[in-house]
């Protein structure tokens, strides 16, 4: 954000989300919206994260629990199919992993340094239910 002088901004402790008006916000995907620099959408908070969720589509049943429960709208879902995690805004809280009902889970937490391929390669197998 530019370091403007005291006379170079709009009054009030007020920031605009978009450059110009937006008419159909519900029908416009985030990537197609004209966010300003002031919007949290354009700010990365990835460095708040200690652990990251990795998504494994092989086990996902598209129940959308993770999408519903994510407090930062960071589960990206298209046509009711999860396609990944918004890693600029995910803060690594692990709620998506907690609510995932599949066996094994379709989302698991890994250290920030783990690459996705090795995470998927070492994915746990189905756990037997205790009888």
């Amino acid at each position, binding site marked *: 954000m530019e*370091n*403007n*002088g*005291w*006379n170079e*901004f*709009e*009054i*009030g*402790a*007020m*920031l*605009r*989300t*978009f450059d110009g*008006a*937006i*008419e159909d*916000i519900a029908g416009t995907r985030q990537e197609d919206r004209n966010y300003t620099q*002031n919007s949290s959408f354009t700010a990365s908070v990835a460095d708040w994260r200690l652990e990251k969720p990795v998504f494994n589509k092989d086990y996902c049943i598209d129940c959308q629990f993770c999408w519903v429960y994510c407090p930062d709208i960071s589960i990206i879902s298209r046509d009711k199919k999860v396609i990944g995690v918004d890693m600029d805004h995910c803060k690594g809280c692990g709620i998506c992993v907690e609510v995932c009902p599949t066996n094994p889970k379709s989302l698991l937490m890994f250290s920030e340094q783990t690459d996705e391929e090795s995470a998927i390669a070492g994915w746990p197998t189905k756990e037997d239910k205790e009888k």
Partner: protein
Amino acid sequence: MAFDKLELNETEVWDGNHAAAQALRQAQVDVVSAYPITPSTAIVEGYAKFKSDNLVEGEFVMVESEHAAMSGCIGAAAAGGRVATATASQGLALMAETLYQASGMRLPIVLNIVNRALAAPLNVNCDHSDMYMVRDSGWIQFDAFNPQEAYDLNLIAFKVAEDHDVRLPVVVNQDGFLTSHTAQGIHPLSDDDAYNFVGEYKPMNDMLDFENPVTHGVQTEEDWHFEHKARQHSDTMNIVPGKIDEVFAEFEKLSGRKYSQLECYNMDDADVAVVCMGTSVETAREVALEMREKGIKAGVVGIRVLRPFPFANIAEVLKDIKAVAALDRSAPGGAAGALFNEIAGALFNTDSKMLLSGYIYGLGGRDLTKKHLVDLYTELQANADAGKLLTQQQQFIGVRGPKLAFL
């Protein structure tokens, strides 16, 4: 319109609280978010009754504290409504945090403060300690000396506050009980004239504009906070005084009642003058006339606009006066009174040889009598004759016990 108008008489008998409530009705306030406190309760109660009688269309929000009352006003104002409330004393103290939010967010809220002492000891009567407590909160502050002015200044307040170059909240002060509960003959405007004067509310960056979403009340740290405060102060100092004069002039055209940032009475040829606020102005005016019969050229300056303080105006008015008394109706807490300081600051770097003395008076509703003011003018004349202060700079009027004098 879905509500009924009131046919008002040319002269109505209203106290200050009812006068303010009538002004809120005529301005067609959208939201009043309020918590009751003596002596201000009748203002918000009055709006609530008007609403239940279908005389105004709006929302009355009963909340759990004054902190919540102003928070509700802030939310409603940010959403894009015309908003007002009222409080006093302890209630204002609890509201204080949110007052700074309102002004920093540049929300045009109108707050009636019915001036009352701050505890301890607990006291419901008039002094100006609540007014003084929030004088640096970034709000424009008007002071009414009687019920008529409480009515007029409420209408004026909306018009000043809501101007898009101003967008600052406004306090309208009136003396607790002395004004708020004293019924006098009032000349109201008709409902149509009053509303047309205030004008339709013009939203600015309102949250209910869904095509232009905004975030209100953002956080800034060392990188931006200072610029926001500087902008607010600059607008308060450079834009607000001119806008107030403009609205005062427009109101005079409509009502015939003339307002000025400083109300000056018999000041043109005065040797000695009292500067004060609230109902004391009217007592001082009466005594000044009586002093003139005794050969003392006495004048009175009433502070109509406490913030932004009219520095240039007061320097101009007082520069040739020989002796001036600044009357502060608030315990000074280890300093000179606020008015004393403002006046001293306004005159300090000028050629004026004015002798300035400060007086603390009227705390907790203690009367300021005509006798007090006769003695005061006599003392000022003695200072003027001697060409120097014959007393210390700070004295107390009307307190029992040994004489108090400081500084």
